[in-house]
């Protein structure tokens, strides 16, 4: 319950945080909402020497439209997103996922940027961001760069983010008209992380799917795009029959996680079930 002691710096701005990070290097950890880091620190599973607090930075907390992109500040809380009309109108899976994260208290405090940087293999956002073709904007000493969500999650709790970089924003391209999406999740009953979460989006052109996006979380060591399911439905009618056939490919070639709540076999089964549910909902 009592974390180790550490140095605390309250960053005045993102740039200030970058300076502090450059100064403290590997000893420092960024603190945003703190809902991934503090629980680990309380159990002393993690004992950082320096914390740089960016949780209060207003410059990171916004949800806005910029051209044909929805831009969410990294400091936006899950609750901000759950209640954002703009987010809902862009992709309903954004609000659906936000609503299923942790509990009310966690959603009030936890941030999108924090969750993405943490890259928990069972977190909800990574799958949604991949399915939404989001671009993740990161700032470092050399300035700002953008990483596609597809390339961002590189493995178990690991991302394309360098040690001296901060996620500043998430840019989600406005989907074409006729797009519908859904996030469906089977919860681990104790922690309520995803055992399997599936984000799916379908764009219709006439009666056929002109674009299909499917991504999973919880299944393996990082969220990933299910290109095989996407391809199976591309330019097909999103009928139950076609969807059922397509989701048979869920988890193909994936090294699935297992724990006492869900074995590998059961997880793969759930991946098919929840991919179907997400796609059926998106097809409506």
């Amino acid at each position, binding site marked *: *319950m*009592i974390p*180790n*002691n550490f140095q605390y710096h309250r960053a005045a701005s993102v740039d200030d945080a970058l300076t502090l990070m450059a100064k403290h290097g590997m000893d420092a950890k960024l603190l945003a909402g703190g809902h991934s880091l503090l629980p680990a620190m309380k*159990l*002393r599973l993690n004992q950082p020497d320096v914390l740089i607090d960016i949780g209060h930075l207003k410059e990171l907390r916004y949800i806005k439209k910029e051209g044909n992109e929805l831009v969410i500040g990294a400091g936006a809380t899950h609750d901000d997103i759950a209640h954002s009309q703009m987010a809902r109108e862009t992709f309903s899976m954004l609000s659906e996922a936000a609503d299923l994260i942790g509990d009310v208290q966690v959603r009030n405090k936890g941030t999108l940027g924090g969750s993405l940087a943490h890259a928990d293999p069972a977190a909800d956002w990574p799958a949604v961001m991949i399915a939404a073709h989001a671009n993740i904007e990161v700032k470092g000493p050399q300035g700002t760069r953008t990483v596609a969500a597809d390339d961002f999650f590189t493995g178990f709790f690991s991302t394309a983010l360098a040690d001296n970089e901060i996620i500043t924003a998430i840019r989600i391209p406005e989907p074409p008209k006729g797009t519908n999406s859904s996030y469906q999740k*089977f919860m681990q*009953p*104790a*922690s309520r992380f995803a055992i399997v979460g599936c984000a799916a989006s379908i764009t219709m052109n006439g009666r056929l799917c002109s674009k299909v996006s499917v991504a999973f979380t919880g299944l393996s060591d990082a969220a990933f795009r299910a290109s095989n399911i996407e391809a199976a439905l591309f330019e097909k009618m999103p009928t139950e029959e076609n969807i059922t056939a397509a989701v048979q490919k869920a988890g193909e070639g994936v090294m699935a996680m297992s724990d*006492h*709540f*869900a*074995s590998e076999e*059961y997880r793969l*089964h*759930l991946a098919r*079930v929840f991919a179907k549910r997400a796609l059926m909902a998106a097809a409506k």
Partner: protein
Amino acid sequence: MTNYIGKAVKRVEDKRFITGKGRYTDDIVLPAMAHAYIVRSPYAHARIISVDTSAAEAMEGVIKVFTGKDIAASGINGIPTGWQVNFKNGETMKEPPHPLLVADKARYMGDAVAVVIAETKEIARDAGDIVEVEYEELPAVADAKKATEPGAPLVHDDAPNNLCFDWELGNPKAEVNEAMSKAHHITTLEFTNQRVIPNAIEPRSAIGHYEEANDKYTLYTTSQNPHLTRLLMCAFVLGIPEHKVRVVAPDVGGGFGSKIFHYAEEALMIWCSQRLKRPVKWTADRSEAFMTDAHGRDHVTKAEMGFDKEGKIVGLRVKTYANLGAYLSTFAPCVPTWLHGTLLQGLYTTPKINVDVTGVFTHTVMVDAYRGAGRPEATYLLERLIDTAALEMKMDPAQLRLKNFIPPFDGVKQPGYQTQVALQYDSGNYHGVLNRAMEMVGYEQFRKEQEAARKEGKLLGIGFSTYIEACGIAPSAVVGALGARAGLYEVGQVRVQPTGKVSVYTGAHSHGQGHETTFAQVVADRLGIPMDDVEIIHGDSESVAFGMGTYGSRSLAVGGSAIVKSLDKIIEKGAKIAAHKLEASEEDLEFAEGKWTVKGTDKSVGFGDVALTAYVPHNYPAGLEPGLDFSSFYDPANFTYPFGAHIAVVEVDKDTGKVALKRFIAVDDVGNVINPMIVDGQIHGGLAQGIGQALFEGALYDDNGQLINGSYMDYTMPRADDLPSFELDRQVTPCPHNPLGVKGAGEAGTIGSTPAVVNAVMDALSPFGIKNLEMPLTPERVWRAMNS
């Protein structure tokens, strides 16, 4: 003016809790208080090679580090158990020592190795990290049945095969075997009644406070029974005279059994405080609570029930391995034996019963009473057998029960019912509760809906459970004969103040049950005074003469009855004073609505007047002592036997195996009811815990004795959105042998609900030919069963 009994009076204690003014142990801050952190074994079984405390002791702010060697050198004893169960051959059970800190060997993951005392809890925690303990890890065993097998690692060298005791109750085995051999049908089930973790939301905490100047000790602790803790700690562990020790259990945030027991940390805080001459506080983290609070259940059982052609039960044969953990906790030997075996008659007329229990040590934390304690295990066994038998014999599960129920008896006109397993039931009407529950659920209609739903591919199920429990624990002579090392009476003192206000001291303890309200209702009604004039005091050995605490749904039946005894004495003495004041004869007076009236006249004297006279005895009956203050010990004549019928309706998601509890109906008969609101609340909470065991909860130990779901991230607690609102009703069959006619309601919900839910899931899964699954019925377990 006063008529509180039977009314849903709002709780007196709520005000402090809803305003954040409750005072729990961890809220208490004493001057110069130091803080303790306990270094615990990460291994389930390990030899302690060395403990190096030097770095920790060198840390600024660290006052002292004590190890198992310090404890051993001080010559104090370990934690005792309060119950003795012998081997069948008459040998005494194995009772290995349980030191406050271990010096040589750790025997479960979490066993206490050292304690760091520091100026702040932060420093204590930091220093705990640098106490260097060298262990040699040894093989461990966590499963009770495996622990008895040849070659299993031994928990204690002097307990061969890890046996603590073996025990038998009921009809001789030969008689039962004979009855079973003639059975038309035998239903057999083998299962584990899994280990669950009580999880009171307030973690345990203890403050030891030794005052050198007057050589007095105070222990503040999260206890359900401060007096029992004092008795065990003083007389058996520390050897301190009891009159020098005050034990206070202030507001306690739930217990469910887990806070009955005298824990090592309590004695340890007193011991440390005495050494350091400062108050010392320890509060468990939840992680620590998972590892060190006594767990519940954990039986491996084979049960067989025989039936004749008509479906009448002819015999029951039970073999159980009960996991006791690494050491014997306070009630541990009693729970799987006398609180389990004696309940195997259930509500049925079973003519031959034999139960055989083996108590086993394992490298796990202690197992002891958890809400229901033994009775849920007995009920689960019986009710699963009945439903399975109904399925096998193609009979209706409700009808099969009704056919086998003991006929109604009130214990007054009809005698109590003598079971095959040592108990005599007080009063019961078992058909009544089940018929009412079936009516509430709309049984016939449900079966039609179920049929229709099945055609649509939906898996609906209904499950029954009818239970009986032995509460109001317990007649001292009886439990003494059964191995209890204490009496189980209760103390109730009623002190009438000169102004007619009443202070009531009870040895029962409230940690959520609402004694301050229920007991005040009883007192106010009996004395005919407003409830506001009554104060209930509990939880402090200094103010309450003695007590045995709260567990086993005993508070009102035993503690309430003790208060009633004192009230009777108050009224009797009051009558003498009133008679004197009214210049009438005592026999001509009647006491009602707070005054003594000369029968047939309007001449009366009020309670307040009598009280004042008792304390200002200027004009007073000759030879009568002043004052109006009585204390009574009530030792119950028998256990009380609440019973009920529960019905669960579930739907299983075919795709995922996830069980949704759609409805839960509970009709309970807990005897007379003082406060229906509180009784319903007790039932609700009990149901949630029982449902939790059926669907969600269960401690998981790996092969090395590591508890692998020791946090809320992995141990599934039922949450608000996991449960429906419950549908409750009540039947009242008063208890014939206590003055209030009450039976107890604290455990009913837990006992009845678990098998109802499991039976409902089995009913839902019956099209798949599934008869038995282990608890908790997790989605994967159910899905696998459907797909195998």
